[in-house]
């Protein structure tokens, strides 16, 4: 420190340091304050500034510290109460965690089993669609063409051919533009053949999906379809193909009388 401390600038108008209360001299007090506030390049002033910086820093730090924790200020019983609260909360949250985890597991397994169920239902739908004729089908098979310009072939002959194809394992059959299903019927109308009420154009074309070799040989057995048709005076041709598209569709009608029997609940 300086050995000769800087004397505070004494007010020029007021002599003396002014000990004691200044009786009613507010304005001069303000002036004195302002005068002291003026920057003075002394070591003590710089030191005071340093202390002020430290004070401000300490205040801010302490305030932030108090904001952060606050637990240090509490008494023991309050701390015990808070600890109890935290323990209870922890137990409750652990319970919640268990419940949520179990429901999550249930949902996960449910999702996988429902996707399994969806897949099997889709498979079943595809199978039934082919069986009932509501879905187009494709696959290997044969095409039987019967050229019958003289209308010698009867509907009974076509029914025989269809039955023969079914015996040989035909899975989907289309005659002309008609998909053959369980309810398909045949009729002779005015020398032409109707299948399920729809006239079949010449030459008759029967597409069947199944094992081509088996069905072709079933057509060609002695006394079979080919021979009978030829005996009628028409010209049958059997062509095996790697891929046959059956595109005709059968439109389903809801049964009026038949009702499904409810499956016994497992």
């Amino acid at each position: 420190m300086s050995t000769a401390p800087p004397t505070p600038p004494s007010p020029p108008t007021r002599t003396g340091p002014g000990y004691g209360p200044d009786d009613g001299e507010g304005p001069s007090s303000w002036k004195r304050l302002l005068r002291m506030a003026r920057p003075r390049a002394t070591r003590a002033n710089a030191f005071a500034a340093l202390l002020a910086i430290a004070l401000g820093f300490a205040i801010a730090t302490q305030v932030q510290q108090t904001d952060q924790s606050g637990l240090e200020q509490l008494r023991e019983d309050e701390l015990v109460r808070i600890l109890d609260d935290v323990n209870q909360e922890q137990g409750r949250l652990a319970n919640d965690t268990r419940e949520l985890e179990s429901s999550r597991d249930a949902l996960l397994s449910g999702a996988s089993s429902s996707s399994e169920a969806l897949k099997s239902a889709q498979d079943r739908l595809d199978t039934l669609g082919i069986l009932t004729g509501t879905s187009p089908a494709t696959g290997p098979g044969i095409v039987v063409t019967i050229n019958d310009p003289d209308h010698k072939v009867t509907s009974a002959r076509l029914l025989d051919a269809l039955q023969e194809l079914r015996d040989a394992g035909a899975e989907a059959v289309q005659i002309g533009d008609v998909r053959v299903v369980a309810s398909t019927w045949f009729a002779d109308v005015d020398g032409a053949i109707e299948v399920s009420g729809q006239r079949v154009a010449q030459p008759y074309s029967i597409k069947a999906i199944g094992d081509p070799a088996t069905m072709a040989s079933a057509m060609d057995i002695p006394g079979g379809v080919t021979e009978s048709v030829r005996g009628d005076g028409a010209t049958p041709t059997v062509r095996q193909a790697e891929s046959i598209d059956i595109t005709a569709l059968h439109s389903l009608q809801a049964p009026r009388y038949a009702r499904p029997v409810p499956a016994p609940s497992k």
Partner: protein
Amino acid sequence: MIPLLGLIGGVLIGLLWGPDVPLVLQPYLPIAVIAALDAVFGAVRAVLDGIFNDKVFVVSFLANVVVAAFIVFLGDQLGVGSQLSTGVVVVLGVRIFSNVASIRRHLFRA
């Protein structure tokens, strides 16, 4: 003026930096801050009384801080730390109030 700027600057530094108070200092910092505030208000009052002295301010500031922290430290060692802290805060608070009252009388004549 310079100390006031220093105070503001210190607050800003503390806010921006935001350091953790070391565990050793945690019981003493609040008391030290209040003691320093007491020294600051005392200094302002001294200015208005016309008896301000830089050296006295610096020494009283440091002495206040050290003594306040030491009292709390001693109280901690004796097992009465919290009570003694309260006592120090009360005493310093009373001093700050009286200093502020004196400043107020000087500045506002009220």
